[in-house]
Structures are given as C-alpha cells and as structure tokens.
C-alpha cells in the first residue's frame, strides 16, 4: 500500500483496529491504551500489522506511545515513517 495517502492509511488502520477490539466504532483521537479496550497482545499485533501492510520495519527508535496511542497518531506515524528502514 502507498504510504502517501492519509485517508487510505487511516481507513486501513481503522479496519485493523476494529477487527482487533470489541468496539463498534472508533474516534480518531481515542486513546487505545488508556481505554482498556485492547488485549495484552494488541501492541505487538498493531506493530506487526503496520510493518506488513506498509512495508516498513520498526525498531527501537520507534518505541514511543505517542506514535500509536490513537488512530490519528498511528496514521501520522506511518506518514512520517514513509517506508524508511528503521535504525
């Protein structure tokens, strides 16, 4: 998938999150990790999904809750990262 289309990226990530947690819909800025709606595997599953879907690799430098705390934050992270290999 292209890493230049913000709407497409957000739609793709939203679909994954909604397929992973028991909520009918998701506010773009809802904090996923403070809400208690995700299971203990969600963090690594979301990471794996992003790596596979957007053909990028995450590493130590990407470990920041600000990158993944919400749908908007995750979308912005993918746009920023834009397929660059991790350090």
């Amino acid at each position, binding site marked *: 998938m292209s890493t230049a289309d913000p709407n497409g990226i957000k739609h793709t990530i939203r679909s994954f999150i909604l397929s992973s947690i028991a909520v009918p819909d998701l506010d773009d800025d809802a904090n996923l990790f403070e809400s208690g709606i995700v299971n*203990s595997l969600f963090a*690594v599953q979301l990471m794996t999904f992003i790596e*596979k879907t957007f053909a990028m690799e995450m*590493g*130590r430098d990407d470990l920041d*809750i600000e990158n993944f705390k919400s749908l908007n934050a995750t979308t912005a992270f993918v746009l920023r990262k834009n397929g660059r290999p991790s350090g």
Partner: protein
Amino acid sequence: MVEKREEFKAFVTLNVAPFAEQWDRDQQVPAGVISQMAQAGYLGCSLPPEYGGQGWDIVTFGLLNEAFGRASSALTGVLTVQAMVSMALLKWGTTEQKRRWLPPLAKGEMLGAFALTEPGAGSAMQSLVTEFTGNSQGLVLNGSKKWISCAQFAAVFLVFGTLGGRSVACVVPKDTPGLRIEPISDLLGFRAAGLAQLHFQDVEVPSANLVGKPGYALSHVAPVGLHYGRISTACSALGLLRGCFEESIAHAAMRKIGDKTVGDMGMVRSLIARMGTDLEAASALCHTACRAEDDHRPEAFEKTLMAKYFTSRAVVRAASDAVQIQGAAGCHGSSAVSRYYRDAKIMEIIEGTTQIHEDILGKIFVDQAGRCGPLARSD
C-alpha cells in the same frame, strides 16, 4: 523441507535420543552436544545470515524443535531460550547491540537465557521487583530471578526489571561481578534443562545494554521473546506428543496378552485414537502458527497461543495414556514414557501457563463475538 526434516531426524537419532535418559538422570546435558548443535547451525538458525545465522524460516525452525522435542524436551529448551533472546535482540536491539551480541549467539559460541520470571512474579509480569537504578557509571541491578531455563550454561542473560518505575530489559553477561547463579535441581521434568536462580547484588551494567526503550520491556520486548518461546515450546510439545504416540502404538502392536495384543483391546484403541487425532490436530495448529509468523501476519501471535495451548494440554493427556497403556513398565525409569510423563506437565507451565493462555484467548474470542454483535438465537 523434507531434506531438513530428515537431517534433523538423523542428527537427533545419532546425537540425542540414545543419551536423553542418561541426561535426565544426571540432570545435565553435556557441553559436547550443545557444541554439535552449534556446529550444525541450529542455535542461530532463524537469525539472518548478516549476523551469522542460517536465515531459516519459522516453519523450518518449528520442524527443528519438533525433531528435538521427540527425543529430549530438556535439550530443546536450549533452542527455545536461544531464540527468545536472539529474536528479542534482533527486533529491539541497537545497531551496536546487534553487532556485538548476535554473531556469537548465531554461531552458538554464546548461549543466552531469558531472565523474566521472579520468585514472586511468574504469570504476573507487572509484579517484577528486580530493579535497576542509575548512577554516574551506568546502571546498578538488584533482585533475583527464578526458574530460568538454561541459566546454568548461559553466557549472557536478558534481564527484565524496572528503572524509575518503568519496565526495562537489559543484557547482563554471566561474569558480571555481583551476579550469583544458583542451580535448581530435582525438578519434576526438564531435569537436564539447566534451570537456575539468579541473584543480583549491586551488579553494575552499562546503560548501553538496555534493549528497547524504558517503559516498553513488558509491552514490546518480552512479547517478542515469549512469542518465539511459545512457537518453540509448541513444536517441542508436538515432538513429545509424537513420541507418546509412537511408543504407544509400538507397545500396542507388540505386547501380547494371551493370544492377543494390547492393541486388540478396545479400551486401548480408544486411548490411541484420541492420541493420534490430537497429534494430527496439534501438527496442523503448529504449522499454521509457523506459517503465520513466516508471513508476518498479526494473527501469528494468537495462532501461536492456540498452538501452544492445545499441544501442551494434548501432550499431558497423551503422556498419561502412554504410561497407562504400558502399565507398570511405563512407571519405571527404564521406559521412555515415564520421562515423557514428567516432561509433558512442564509444557503446560513454561512460556505462559494454560490458564494465562485461556485468559488471553478467551478474551480474544469473546471480543470477536462483541464485534459481530449478539448472535441470533434460534428457538
């Protein structure tokens, strides 16, 4: 794939199976067999060639663990923890950490151990009390770890604890002053797996040894290691399950009772039918999990939980039935199934207990129902 399976079987038949009972009695695996595994490239088989590994896919890694698990659950533990440490470092290590630690791990010149469990924190990872504090020189580590597989022969430990209230993971070499390794013996099973308790007293380690960022050790670093640990354990349990099955059908076919064989008895056939079907189901679950990991699919984590959950429970049933089929002979140390029986129970405890798996998988399945809405009921 077939060639690899045959290679693994030949290695195990020659170097492992004839000695596994003695290792169990000695509560120790000799260094020689670990060197042979290293020379064969098995200890770094899933690491990329750029670090000296074999770059094998996870399906092949699973076959390796199954082959070793068929003969010695304890020795397979070396493959398990080596993968746990190596893959966590590969994913979250800095460039310098990977350059320093991965080549010796890949070549088997160095064995790693995954130091997560504590005397008061097993399944409850959030309860870790092992603590790192900072000083002008780096970090100071205090605390203890327990039930650490392969700790008796590991050269380096990936130690989990807290730093300023945040979870951290840190590489600690065995020869660091202040680290004392206390062997644990007389376990129910996995008696040759070199378990130990680790005592850290004012152990000084460089900050550069922290793996991942503070605050992410339990959410990201440990889950990667545990994921590979579960793949390894599931496949090792599959090998043990195959051992129970093969010993049972051989006994059932050969052992005479009057003019009939044990296998002519319907009750024995029932036990073997369940065992053989569990074997097929477990094999399918393990293969599915390995394939999902090779495809780098997010569901690989839950597929692996299912494989480990099912296979570890199935092997406990199978080992119990294998002893039952052999009767008194199965209760004696001269019978392989008596060891299988003891090792099988450990499979339900390591890398997450059965109950932890049920808690996680149960939530996943209930959440799936929640996403689909209430199920329609037919009256």
